[in-house]
């Protein structure tokens, strides 16, 4: 209540600008994890549901809270889990520098005997 509507609007506008700034640097390779990660961030709606649960009453209020809690939790838990699963698949080439070094030592006489 202390900051009021204009305060909220200020925070909203600044966060929007920060978002544009940070996200425009994400490469296309990571756009799916980015969207999925952003997806989990809007799971923050669960925080709102917790606040909501502290003042609702009556059957309608409880039903709405229950459904909202289920939605929010599915969003936040599933979002982070699937993003993590996706990102762990992004691997570097398995040590490319070592390959040519290892090969000759790795017992291939025909190659090591070759004149350079």
């Amino acid at each position, binding site marked *: 209540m202390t900051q009021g509507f204009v305060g909220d609007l200020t925070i909203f506008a600044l966060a929007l600008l920060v978002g544009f700034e940070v996200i425009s640097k994400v490469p296309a390779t990571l756009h799916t994890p980015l*969207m999925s990660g952003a997806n989990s961030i809007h799971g923050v709606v669960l925080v709102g549901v917790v606040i909501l649960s502290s003042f609702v009453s009556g059957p309608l209020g409880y039903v709405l809270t229950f459904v909202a809690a289920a939605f929010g*939790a599915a969003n936040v838990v599933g979002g982070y889990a699937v993003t993590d699963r996706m990102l762990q*698949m992004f691997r570097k080439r398995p040590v490319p520098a070592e390959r040519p070094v290892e090969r000759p030592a790795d017992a291939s006489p025909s190659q090591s005997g070759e004149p350079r």
Partner: protein
Amino acid sequence: MTVQDGVRLASLFGAACFVLGLHMMNSPATARRGNQLSAFGMLVAVIAVLVQVSHGGTMNATRWLVLACGALIGGAVGLYSARSVAMTSMPQLVSLFNAVGGGAAALIAVADYHHDTHLSGGVATASVLDVLIGCVTFSGSLIAAAKLQGYFSQPVTFPGAKAVSAILALAAVAAGIDVIAGAHNIWILVIVVAAATGIGILMVLPIGGADMPVVISLLNAFTGTAVAMAGFVLENATLTIAGALVGASGGILTKLMADAMNRSVLSIIAGGFGTGTSGIEVSGAGGGSVRSIAIDDAALQLVYASKVIVVPGYGLAAAQAQHAVRELAELLEARGIEVSYAIHPVAGRMPGHMNVLLAEANVPYDQLREMDDINPEFDRTDVALVIGANDVTNPAARRPGNAVSGMPILDVDRARSIIVIKRSMASGYAGIDNELYTDPKTSMLFADAKKGLAELVAAAKVV
């Protein structure tokens, strides 16, 4: 320091984690830790709000029970779907998460309105926007997910759809203004809910499959905005900040996707790709002859190349050929051939989808190259291997006057030779012939992507 201050500081910490986590997404090397940081921030924010409400003294057994049951069931379903989903089905899952996120945000506003009889003008406006955007996202995302799942992939149109949308929009605006003006009757808000749900359905139904990356991005931006509005309703800065971040992310991706498809967001929402232009054929394209190639010859061509660029499209993923293409690439690399993958921004069903599919098949991410980055390299490429990609390789895009004009394309035709693996000469979503196929440098390998690649691997092994 009071409990209230502690809670505020913890929320600030959570919001900072979201921003830093998103920032770390700018490189594949740090992205995973970024996501974990973001998840940690979320955990802190949730714990903080739990402390806050338990100190508020208004929680009772019923309220805790309702909250806990909902969260446990939802969390379990979310975790299960996250663990079990196939990577090709990611767009559907993201759509479903958009739906539940937007739905939860709308429910917050409805429950708050139901409870609070005195909303200030600002909060009432935010409530109406929250319900409106949240419900459009909810129903629109469900339809999008159903389309992506293949329940119905063709655009659905019926006469009078535009008129119905207009009536619904009018009803939503009228009821919304009534609420903002101070009316307090839950049924007025129900009108907004119903109208917005209808608008969401009618908005996504006529949109074609190829436009899905734009639709998902747009709905993602909507969800973020709805959550930010829920933050206004509850006067909670964490929600507002997080929602704004997601709104920005979705907005950027929407713009990028629409640009990459050479379409405006408005024209996509209006529906119908190339409906006006599909009748006018690209002149001359039909006249050229198509050269088909045998597996053995194609394998020879690849094996004696020194630089190969693979151009994968959704056809590759649809045929589940990611592993086969990686096998072929490894075989070529073992012979000292330079192999990379040229990924068009809209390859797949959501932004960046193809990268994830290839990463899943163990293709290292430094081989996955973006369009602008790799286009100059086609000049120096011996063989461009196009698999299941069509419109994004059509050189006709460089000329005005056809359905793909102006669309950013991969400069595949600049390679010294081109092999296209494709089942038939059928045209892509734009509905026009691909001039690449009749280029004298191009050979067509008519086969299913998976089968064709497996045969190529077998043939390349014995060369």
